[in-house]
């Protein structure tokens, strides 16, 4: 039997992977073992077929269903050459140059195969952790220098230490899988492509802080991730990886998936906790911090998917090994996501420090439209627009902050030179108005007024006066908002104004 891989990842499926898989089954069902793996992350190549050969896994893509028969006829199952043949996937520069820690198994294994999981290093970290005292596990995390991958970059070890130090019979581990930012999809790909990794990371966290229950809060826009996670959790229970005696260690840990219901704000950690409690997703004031007063008022770890998915490897290899990667205070690897108008979009995991230019123009191949890049938005809809002139910025939390930008979770959305940046600024306010929880005034009312003021500016109505109003509003939202939603919405607006002021003048707009 020849093992053939066709991703089940929903991005791959969105461009026909299911149809390709069906065509393969039909054309060569009896000759092959078809594995629905996660995606390798080279999304421009999806649907990507991989055939296991003695040379390694040979890739073909992107494949249309109607091309499948031809590929088989051309000897694909033996790894034969073809115009769609990419060669050995692991040797492609895109794959070769990555340092895949989080994504080591994603695209490689069958996401729901426990055999695959253990064969590729799964459970090593958990076993290491369970053999050690909780405080030692937390110390390892602290040593790794891992910072929250959700965007804020708070040191994970410090958070865990706080939860460990807070007394409480009941503690929780919550995974924030409400990946709502445009330009990010790594959480989704990991949940669909290596769910056990997340489960393992959360279990380690539970042991480290004394938690007995965990919740993964997934947005409803990710139905495939939800289904995969639920299935994985069932399998984990069946194998004693979860439940009342995890791997025979005596640890009790129960894990649940909860699904959001269409509210971007629930990606904000306190809003997510409210939502998990069955309430309106209204942002809470801090203090108290969730580590002390979190879900249902109990000490709670809230970490992003990739933060938790980084944990097994840290425990397996040691915090010191992890911290050797990266630069400055940004340690380890970041899973960059190249998105939008880009020729080669996908995930690229590498140590911090790589420049935007290497990512976008190097690995990403510039725009998909073939036109010059005008700007990229880094860190989601609340991130700044970075002009090409700043493409030498190293990917480092502090370096970005110094440039009044935000590295965030490493999502990068590329725009070409046809983009009207005043529209993007307006959209930032519109998005905020659409998704604001409505609790604080600067965000609730300010975002609506922001749209109106930008319309006045671009409409030529007292541009100078209204620009002053917009600046004041941005200042108010930044300094006055309750949470990052209102507080960071001015980032895209201001950066668009700073770097592309011409887009806000009537003349320019009329010329376009």
């Amino acid at each position, binding site marked *: 039997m020849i093992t053939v891989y066709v991703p089940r990842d929903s991005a791959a499926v969105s*461009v026909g992977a299911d149809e390709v898989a069906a065509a393969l089954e039909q054309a060569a069902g009896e000759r092959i073992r078809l594995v629905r793996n996660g995606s390798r992350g080279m999304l421009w190549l999806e649907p990507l077929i991989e055939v296991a050969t003695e040379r390694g896994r040979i890739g073909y893509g992107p494949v249309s269903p109607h091309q499948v028969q031809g590929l088989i006829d051309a000897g694909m199952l033996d790894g034969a050459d073809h115009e769609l043949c990419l060669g050995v996937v692991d040797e492609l520069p895109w794959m070769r140059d990555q340092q895949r820690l989080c994504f080591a198994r994603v695209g490689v294994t069958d996401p729901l195969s426990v055999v695959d999981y253990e064969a590729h290093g799964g459970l090593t970290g958990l076993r290491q952790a369970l053999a050690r005292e909780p405080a030692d596990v937390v110390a390892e995390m602290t040593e790794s220098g891992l910072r929250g991958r959700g965007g804020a970059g708070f040191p994970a070890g410090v958070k865990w230490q706080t939860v460990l130090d807070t007394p409480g019979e009941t503690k929780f581990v919550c995974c924030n899988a409400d990946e*709502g930012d445009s330009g990010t999809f790594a959480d989704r790909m990991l949940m669909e492509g290596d769910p056990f990794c997340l489960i393992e990371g959360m279990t380690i966290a539970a042991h480290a802080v004394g938690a007995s229950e965990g919740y993964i809060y997934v947005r409803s826009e990710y139905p495939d991730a939800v289904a995969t996670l639920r299935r994985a959790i069932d399998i984990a229970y069946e194998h004693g990886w979860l439940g009342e005696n995890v791997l025979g260690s005596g640890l009790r840990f129960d894990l649940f998936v909860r699904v959001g*219901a269409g509210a971007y704000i629930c990606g904000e950690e306190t809003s997510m906790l409210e939502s998990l409690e069955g309430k*309106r997703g209204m942002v809470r004031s801090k203090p108290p911090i969730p580590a002390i007063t979190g879900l249902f008022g109990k000490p709670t770890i809230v970490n992003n998917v990739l933060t938790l998915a980084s944990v097994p490897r840290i425990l397996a290899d040691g915090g010191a090994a992890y911290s050797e990667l990266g630069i400055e205070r940004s340690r380890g690897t970041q899973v960059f996501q190249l998105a939008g108008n880009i020729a080669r979009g996908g995930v690229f995991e590498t140590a911090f420090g790589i420049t935007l230019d290497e990512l976008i123009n190097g690995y990403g191949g510039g725009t998909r439209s073939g036109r010059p890049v005008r700007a990229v938005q880094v860190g989601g809809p609340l991130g700044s627009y970075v002009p090409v002139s700043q493409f030498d910025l190293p990917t480092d939390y502090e370096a970005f902050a110094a440039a009044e930008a935000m590295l965030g979770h490493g999502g990068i959305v590329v725009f070409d030179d046809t983009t009207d940046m005043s529209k993007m600024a307006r959209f930032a306010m519109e998005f905020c108005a659409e998704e604001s929880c409505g609790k604080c005034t600067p965000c609730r009312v300010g975002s609506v007024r922001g749209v109106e003021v930008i319309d006045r500016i671009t409409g030529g109505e007292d541009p100078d006066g209204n620009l002053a109003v917009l600046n004041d509003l941005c200042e108010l939202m930044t300094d006055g908002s309750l949470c990052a939603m209102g507080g960071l919405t001015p980032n895209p607006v201001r950066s668009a104004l700073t770097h592309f002021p011409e887009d806000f003048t009537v003349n320019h707009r009329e010329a376009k």
Partner: protein
Amino acid sequence: MSEDAETVRAIVAAHRGDRGPLLPILHDIQDTFGYIDQEWIPVLATELNVSRADVHGVITFYTDFRSEPSQATTVRVCRAEACQSLGAERLVADTEQMFGVKLGQTTPDGSVRLEQVFCLGNCALAPAVQINGRMYGRMDRARLVEVLAKGAES
């Protein structure tokens, strides 16, 4: 109504023991009936020992929950930045023109409902559209027509 109320109670019962179960319950109700009837709010409030206002506040906070039944095919066009970078706004305009209704509206014959969505996690294969829960990438007017035609069969 009473039969439906029994179903609602059974859904609640299935979540007994869950912490903070309102959202999972609302999802299950909507999955079962396609919407959340106003008349079930008192039933939920009683069963969960919260107030009617509590339930109403939650339902209206989340855009997923519908209070009207609908048989329509739901077409959700992503309008987030990554999709905008590859013409999401044009796709929105095309879609609105195709169906003759705006985002947030249902066609007069009740067959298609257009919605906006902000990010489906398919940002490297933009623009993305979700049709009845299934995601499509690299979407344009032609492909949308094709997909909807196929969807009508399956």
